[in-house]
């Protein structure tokens, strides 16, 4: 069943680290902290997915405050101790992007008004731990058109701007390779300084980065621009 997801605007409270002991200066770090996420007042949501970027949290539990139309609010445990870092003392998984989907949850995450994320990091190796870029996606009903899972994953790939689009027909390329080779031979025999390079630089913009790419064209690679490769300084 394909569903479309929208990120819902929510208010994410700062993480509250639980302390053992009375005065803050004497407090021992307990390795537990709580992040509350409040959803818009009066508009309970049905959750499809919770996504976030980890920052040194070892394991995560998720509790949901639900309010069904005809009953009182109640807290439910949706996720119990999912491990985000295989080894809490080591960097593996410490800054990974993660998602928790509806199907993983112990209860149906519907009519949710508040989400409580309970973060645990038992290791004393780290100064702090948290979750960043928390986004809650709502569950909406399926589209009228049934798209198979495999095809929808293909669409995922097509959205990746790093992929080379429009690969050329191999027959025409092999013809042009032969022409170019013939040209190379001619050039070798008639020595002059004209160049045989081709304009082959393409540009992709990915997020805030500009990537310049020499185009790989069925194993024919040209690194020049209009046959020119006079370079003076690297840009820093």
């Amino acid at each position, binding site marked *: 069943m394909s569903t479309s997801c929208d990120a819902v605007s929510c208010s994410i409270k700062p993480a509250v680290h639980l302390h053992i002991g009375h005065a803050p200066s004497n407090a021992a770090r307990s390795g537990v902290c709580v992040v509350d996420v409040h959803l818009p007042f009066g508009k309970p949501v049905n959750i499809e997915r919770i996504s976030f*970027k980890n*920052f*040194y949290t070892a394991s995560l539990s998720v509790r949901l405050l639900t309010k069904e139309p005809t009953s009182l609010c109640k807290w439910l445990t949706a996720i119990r101790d999912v491990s985000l870092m*295989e*080894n809490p003392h080591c*960097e*593996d998984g*410490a*800054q*990974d*992007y*993660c*998602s928790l989907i509806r199907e993983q949850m112990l209860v149906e995450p519907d009519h949710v008004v508040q989400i409580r994320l309970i973060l645990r990091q038992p290791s004393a*190796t*780290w*100064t*702090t731990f948290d979750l960043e*870029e928390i*986004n809650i996606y709502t569950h909406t009903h399926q589209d009228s058109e049934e798209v198979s899972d*495999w095809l929808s*994953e*293909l669409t*995922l*790939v097509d959205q990746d701007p*790093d*992929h080379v689009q429009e*690969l050329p027909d*191999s*027959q025409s390329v*092999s013809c042009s*390779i032969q022409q170019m080779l013939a040209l*190379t031979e001619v050039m*070798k025999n008639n*020595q002059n*300084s004209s*160049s045989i390079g081709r304009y082959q*630089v393409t*540009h992709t913009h*990915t*997020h805030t*980065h500009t990537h*310049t790419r*020499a185009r*790989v064209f*069925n*194993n*024919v*690679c040209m*690194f*020049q*621009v209009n046959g*020119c*490769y*006079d*370079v*003076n*300084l*690297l*840009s*820093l």
Partner: protein
Amino acid sequence: MDELSVSIAHIVQRLRGSSLHSQIERHAKECLHQPDIKLDSLKEDVRTFLKTTGWERKLQNAVYRELHVLQPPHHLSAPPEHLKEPLAYMRTAQACWERRVFKSLNSMSSELEVPLARMRPAAEQKDLTDKWNEMGTDESDLSRFRPVYAPKDFLEVLIGLRNPNHNSSDGVSAKSHWGLIQVPLNVRDIKQLRQTYAELSLTCGQLGIDDNAHIHPDLFENEYVQMGNKVVLEQNSAASQQYIRQGCPTELRAELWALTLNATNQPQDVMYYEQLKAGVIQHDLLVDNLVYKDVKLTASNDDYYFVFEDFLYQVLLCFSRDTTVLEHFKYNSATPPKSYIEGKVGDEQCAVFYPPNGVIPFHGFSMYVAPLCYLYNEPSKLYSVFREMYVRYFFRLHSISSSPSGIVSLCLQFEWLLQTHLPQLFYHLRQIGAQPLRIAFKWMVRAFSGYLSTDQLLLLWDRILGYDSLEVVAVLAAAVFAFRAENLMEVTSLASAEAVLADLSTLKVMPLIQIFLFATAV
């Protein structure tokens, strides 16, 4: 299942339009003339044809190759830099290091008044074409050029790596790390290594141990070589990779490595190499001088490799022009240097990478190629194998990343293995100011090339390919220290420790690794 679909789609996209794809299509079309291909069972018959003529196997090998460099399916929100390196502080450190290197290259270019790249005049092009097979005889003045950096400069950067979120307030104790690398990456201990490297255990036959002259070949070697012949006949990359874990017979090594890496030498590969050569003839790059200098300083001075000087130029100069190498930057934490032609800074229409393959060679770089010269004498084949080894393994030895095969992990693993199993030795060396990594780093950065005798080095590289990991390099480094522990306990300075470990040319690597992994008490 979703992850599998994404991976399949990625691999299909990678292989679509490749020369293998067009070859398979062409052969499939040609087979339609054959009488045993029936219209009502067309799909099955064509499939069977492709299987029996070996094309399916070639496709399998191509898919297997793609799996090696396939990145795990990534989270939708993850930006591209996260895929290159997930830890922010390592990305920052790599970017800083790169800036230093680029600045150094720019200064060299300005001081020496040599442009980074220029078109060669016609006469020079002809001259180089004539001299292509004997570039080593060129007596040009390289004294002005110096390597952009040496491994020891890179080591200082790795030593300075700090995770800002790492709580290192506790003082030095038995539990803390005594070594130079202070980032808490996950590295494996001997128990875990034993499971992974099970084929190296004391009960398994090994080339490098059980092919010794005084062991009768019927006990292991003959049967193992026969199996190797079968593997070569099968032409299956996955089988080959599994086989070479116990070593390659010398006569089969060239084929087995090429098969494992799926490094082909088809006409189109030869053609491609010729195009790269044309690129070398046409344009002169400043990095070419760095290559010449490096070869003269390292390989040419090495008893084992000086005869291959010309091959090294032919491979490394072409390597610098090869833009297909740029693809590996998707999974390399490094970023290729960028520039603009004709000084048109900021004009994206004039943007190029420099050098075209994005890799700036450093002191010792040519040693990645040198051992391969013993296996391949055809330049295009040698080139093909080297390029694949670089984009799978060697690039990790000189970029800052959290990868388990990355140099940072290897250094940390080396130090942990030593601290755990030879604590007295480690403590002693530390006390006398001879941190073990300062000695072992240069071995690991070159994957021991130039330090071991060639036959031993090739046995080590068999295992790198077989296990698809550089981890065995760190294990060997620790094993070498274990082997010379007695002598090292008696030294009183870094210089004398270096002297004890200066000559590794008599070492036999497989017994050392085997004893360290499987005979150390845990």
